């Protein structure tokens, strides 16, 4: 009997169409897998077995009745808990929202419902997406299925781990500084941050509005493309959403598998290597470059000198916007309330108890950076750096069609290892942050396992704004070349979890 949890979303689509499997079977298989392994992985904060099966049954009935169905109808999905879901608890990883059941759907939630995809549940994350390890979740950390003592990345560790543990074939992520790509890198999965504005943010609980972008998480480039096309598109409810057609990601991914990359210029960002980069990470990165070269691509070195200031600028802009976005968690209209007699004391006590340390750290940083007399030096300067980074990218894209780097400087570190060292934690995102500051799309896909620790390494591809399809094409080409060498997808090499044995 086929273990459907090992299939790709594309294979599930084909099997559903052929009548080889029902959506109920697919959904139940994943719910069973969650029941078996999630006690150890803790990828989910909320599981909606009943809702998912109801959707699955409806899809099966519709298919039996010969109805025309959307491409991904019946394929189950996991949703990061940052996305509001009507009637399903939404916490953004914070106890301040414990018990809150939203009265409305995010635009992306609505699109998933319209695509008739059973929603398995909500995945764990660092509180309000602040973190690179999920250790800042108010509900306990998620564990990396490759090594349960290690971090699954963050903030979207729950979504990435759910894929790596075969609890879901597809998941939704959000990426403010790498929260889709870094977890993908450390779990040997695929994660894409679309062009800013490519996917509606309406209903995604805001961290830093000018940086946040929702995107697809999957185990293959093609699967990510399938989900990207469901999520993307203009939304009148999001003023910053792009008013242009969704890029043809699926076609690009399929074409990429057969691609001859002759004439494609691949720019290696000089500044994203060297000091702080683990040798095995760099080794796998070089090998991937060799694969691309073998497919005909030309490898060029590009320099982005302003990247030196990216992390500093990011840690001014993000906390500034976050300090304002998180003000609404004041106990008046929703969420936790710690009664203390009057409204001022109640607000204060609720926030003191409801927010974790990392959230408080960033609220304080942001409040300070926006204060009168400091604004120009901090927020103002950071915006200037942002402009310089955009110029660096513009110049680099003159020389190359896509830019590449290792997604993260290291393989996943141990849970607890950096929890008391915020700066070391922040450094994990050094390669992913520039894309958010510039609004360009980025993808991470597996490049192998580091020889020294046998843990996943990631390869990042960045494309100019609006050129999301370009990275799907090149990503799919590299994925195919690597899979040919490995004899299948890297995810299949993940050690079977003790509990499931």
């Amino acid at each position, binding site marked *: 009997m086929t273990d459907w949890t090992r299939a790709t979303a594309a294979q599930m689509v084909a099997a559903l169409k052929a009548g080889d499997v029902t959506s109920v079977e697919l959904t139940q298989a994943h719910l069973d897998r969650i029941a078996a392994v999630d006690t150890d992985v803790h990828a989910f904060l909320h599981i909606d077995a009943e809702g998912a099966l109801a959707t699955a049954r409806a899809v099966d009935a519709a298919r039996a009745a010969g109805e025309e169905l959307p491409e991904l109808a019946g394929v189950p999905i996991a949703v990061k808990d940052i*996305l*509001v879901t009507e009637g399903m608890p*939404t916490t*953004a990883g914070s106890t301040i*929202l414990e018990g*809150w059941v*939203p*009265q*409305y759907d*995010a635009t992306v939630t609505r699109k998933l419902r319209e695509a008739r995809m059973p929603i398995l549940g909500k995945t764990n994350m660092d509180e309000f997406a602040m973190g690179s390890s999920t250790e800042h979740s108010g509900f306990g950390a998620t564990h990396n299925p490759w090594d349960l003592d290690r971090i699954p990345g963050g903030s979207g560790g729950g979504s990435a781990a759910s894929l790596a543990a075969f609890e879901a074939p597809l998941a939704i992520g959000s990426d403010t500084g790498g929260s889709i790509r870094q977890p993908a890198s450390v779990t040997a999965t695929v994660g894409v941050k679309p062009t800013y504005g490519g996917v509606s*943010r*309406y*209903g*995604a*609980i*805001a961290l*830093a*509005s*000018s940086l946040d972008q929702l995107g697809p998480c999957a185990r293959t480039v093609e699967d990510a493309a399938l989900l990207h096309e469901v999520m993307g598109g203009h939304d*009148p*409810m*999001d*003023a*910053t959403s792009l008013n242009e057609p969704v890029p043809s990601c699926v076609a690009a991914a399929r074409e990429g598998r057969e691609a001859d990359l002759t004439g494609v210029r691949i720019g290696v960002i000089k500044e994203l290597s060297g000091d702080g980069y683990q040798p095995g990470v760099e080794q796998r990165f070089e090998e991937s470059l060799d694969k691309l070269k073998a497919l005909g691509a030309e490898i060029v070195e590009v320099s982005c000198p302003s990247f030196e200031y990216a992390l500093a600028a990011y840690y001014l802009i993000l906390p*500034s*916007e976050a*300090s*304002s976005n998180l*003000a*609404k*968690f*004041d106990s*008046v*209209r*929703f969420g936790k309330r710690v009664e203390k007699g009057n*409204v*001022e004391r109640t*607000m204060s006590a609720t926030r003191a108890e409801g927010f974790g340390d990392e959230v408080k750290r960033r609220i304080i940083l942001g*409040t300070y950076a*926006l*204060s*009168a007399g400091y*604004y120009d030096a901090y*927020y103002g300067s950071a915006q200037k750096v942002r402009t310089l980074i955009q110029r660096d990218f513009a110049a680099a894209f003159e020389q190359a069609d896509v830019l590449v780097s290792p997604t993260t400087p290291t393989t996943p570190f141990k849970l607890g290892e950096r929890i008391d060292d915020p700066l070391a934690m922040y450094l994990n995102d050094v390669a992913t942050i520039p894309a958010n500051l510039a609004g360009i799309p980025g993808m991470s896909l597996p490049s192998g396992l580091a020889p020294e620790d046998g843990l996943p390494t990631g390869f990042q591809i960045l494309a100019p704004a609006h050129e999301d399809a370009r990275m799907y094409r090149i990503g799919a080409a590299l994925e195919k070349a690597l899979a040919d060498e490995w004899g299948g997808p890297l995810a299949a090499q993940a050690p079977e979890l003790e509990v499931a044995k």
Partner: protein
Amino acid sequence: MSAMTYDKAMEQFDPVFGIEVHIELNTKTKMFCGCANEFGAEPNTQVCPVCLGLPGSMPVTNEKAVESAIRLGLALGCSIRESSRFARKNYFYPDLAKDYQISQYDEPTCYDGSIDVVLDDGEVFTIGIERAHMEEDAGKNTHVGGTGGIQGASHSLVDYNRGGVPLVEIVTRPITGAGARTAEVARAYVATIRDFVKALDISDGRMEQGSVRADVNLSLRPKAAPGEDQNAVPFGKRSETKNVNSLRAIERAIHHEAARQAELLLAGEPVVQETRHWHEDTGSTTPGRSKEEAEDYRYFPEPDLLPVEPSREWVEELRSTIPEHPAKMRARLMEEWGFSDLDMRDAVNADALDLIAATVAAGAKAQAARKWWMGELARTANDRDVTLQELPVTPAHVAELQGLIDDGKINDKLARQALEGVLAGEGSPTEVVASRGLEVVSDDSALEAAVDEALAAQPDVLAKIQDGKVQAAGAIVGAVMKATRGQADAGRVREIILQRAGVEG
């Protein structure tokens, strides 16, 4: 309060003032969401995830509100920025759903304007406008228990219906040189803004409902010595009196603040730079938060919204829709219509200018139009407790009614009966005259018969008339009018009496 008065304060000090006016726009929907923008609904029935600030929700700018703001800016002679931004003003308060207000800060859409205000004696004073910017209103807190204030209340309720209602805030430059006329100028300025937003039809302009709200800044500085330049004397410390929400209150608040500050200054005490609350009942102000401990609003550009970038073509198109300055229009109409100051003021106060203008446009003479609207119709409106606009009679009806009089078809008395019919919904004046049979008796033979009968009944009166006491004819006119149930033309009746009596009229 002591013996210090506004007038005395003005003898010794030179006032500098500024006014912030908030205009609630009359768009169908709120500033950043699709909820209805209406006054008076049940609490928390006009709300959605956006104006409740629920997690994940995002604002989208109401284009109609932008249009209203630009038109107002153009009316105030402002420049319209090619690219302006919204900003977040951060502060915690339960009526502010997101705990930040979306406003405009360093890049308001409208800036650098000026507007003339006309005082009662016709003097024109020019007010400099620093900016007019868009923002959203907050919800409304109601404190339960105690005296209704927050102190002593057992708990508070919040109604978010008003949260997100579109506002335009107009900020003046510091206004100098008004001297003792400061209070008058301030009042005239707010009145002008109110009249203008009504003429632009971007707000209902109702101060009593909070659609137009004013904050008044005032400071005093010593009067310059003879030969010295008053403008070289530095400004004093100012107070900002919040929520002064009627024209009379504007004047009173300035009177009070000027006297209060003058008294402090003369006693050698400092004026504290602070916000103050206006108390309508006592006509006085009390301190609010002092500016020294005021919050830092941590403004930064609103990342959820794109810049406002109106095309030049659109701005020019909007410029062509700007109505005439209300005070200047009034001056023009006063001359064209031959109204006295009092006529004009009464018509303005009764909100009858548009009705009179429309009646004139429909063919009536201005004085006749005024007579109907300010007389019979004003009384009816008053009796029925409705506005003139709400009466079931149109300017065209009034013009038609007056036309019937001018043509001699009916007299004033019959006209009032015809109007009664119109107000009762019986149709147009012509229709009512026909259906009620109100036309004057213009058949001379019928009138002659009635006159002869009356004269025969009162021979002594006939004798008096023939004696030259022509005014005695009034008694006969009265008798004839009675006999014809008022449907005779009194002038014609009088002519016939005099003919019969053999005397010339």
